[in-house]
């Protein structure tokens, strides 16, 4: 399967806020089909905030995000897995929501076929993460936003993940990945967010110095 539409994600001069505080400012990049961009930076720099802004969960403070409609699939820290549903039921639900039908290729790609009828509560942390990654496959969307996708994956699963990304890129998809470790992805370009961090000191709170 190839993605039928060629989709480019363009971010121009983006500023985003977390908890009312501007954390990033002036971020610009382009992710074309077949490309992968890894966002790097220390904890708290705003990697998750940037991804959530691009995913449309919060409005940008400034700047523009240009991507075709219905082209972005977002994978958060939390995988959205219901523990009382089976692996197959969890994935079938997301496939139905995104209007795709067949979940078998996704399960096979991430080697969860054998666990299909097991309740998700009995999965290990790494298996849950793999199920979360399989969800991206059933969305059928070309631009993937991934927040720390390799957390709790072992070496073998990380290799599976890299193979899955490679196949995604080969089909004309693209990915934007937030990670604080080097993923070892051959095709990746890296963007360090540190220069874009907002250095304006936080405004003093009216409650500073107030003691109970």
């Amino acid at each position, binding site marked *: 399967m190839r993605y039928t539409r060629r989709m480019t994600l363009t971010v121009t001069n983006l500023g985003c806020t977390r908890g009312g505080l501007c954390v990033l400012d002036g971020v610009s990049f382009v992710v074309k089909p077949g490309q992968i961009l890894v966002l790097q930076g220390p904890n708290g720099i705003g990697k998750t905030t940037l991804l959530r802004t691009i995913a449309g969960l919060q409005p940008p403070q400034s700047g523009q995000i240009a991507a075709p409609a219905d082209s972005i*699939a977002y994978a*958060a820290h939390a995988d*959205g897995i219901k523990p009382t549903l089976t692996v197959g039921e969890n994935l079938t*639900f997301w496939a139905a929501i*995104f209007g795709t039908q067949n979940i078998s290729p996704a399960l096979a790609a991430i080697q969860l076929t054998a666990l299909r009828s097991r309740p998700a509560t009995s999965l290990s942390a790494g298996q849950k993460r793999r199920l979360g990654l399989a969800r991206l496959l059933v969305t059928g969307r070309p631009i993937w936003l991934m927040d720390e996708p390799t957390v709790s994956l072992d070496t073998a699963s990380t290799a599976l993940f890299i193979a899955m990304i490679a196949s995604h890129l080969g089909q004309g998809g693209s990915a934007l990945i937030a990670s604080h470790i080097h993923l070892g992805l051959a095709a990746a370009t890296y963007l360090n967010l540190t220069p874009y961090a907002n250095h304006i000191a936080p405004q003093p709170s009216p409650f500073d110095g107030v003691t109970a």
Partner: protein
Amino acid sequence: MISLLMRDITLAMRAGGGFGLGLAFFLLVAVLVPLGVGPDPITLAKIAPGILWVGALLACLLSLDRLFALDAEDGSLDLLATAPVPLEAVVVIKSLAHWLVTGLPLTVIAPALGLLLNLPTSGYPWLVAAFGLGTPALSVIGAFGAALTVGLKRGGLLLSLLVLPLYVPTLIFGAEVIRRGALGLDATTPLLFLAGITLGSTALLPIASAAAIRVNLR
């Protein structure tokens, strides 16, 4: 959309899903009140409409904090908000699923509990009609409260304080339908009011709920 409805119902039915919690609570209220008030049939018949509706209200309230909070905790709500389904529809479907696993069972069991409370025979059709028309409003209004408190951990207290005042019109008109029905009077007017509350809140509140969720997800 159907898949979301089926998922919510399945989740409610499976272990720890909370199906039966409200029903059991409703049952307990209706069984304990005659024991507490005393076996005088006239007193019981007089308070039956009020007790049934208060029981239904509180039973409904019990399961409300799970409506969006569970989805918010495991990340499903973020993913649903970025999925190709309008958040308003998600709210409507989740309210419908909530009604199917709380309001509908309450409606079905209410006549049996009316018997325990010595409700006069002429009141039963009105009892079922009032519950059938009134309990959907409880789910829709409750979903609004749940959406407002979705970002809060243990927001149950705030949720109750927000939602209970909004439940008062349903309580008043719902109990009035049964009271008039039990006395053999015409109960069409309060029943129409009750239907109006349900229809109005179903039309307007999902939009407000979706807006509240969007703000809370930021």
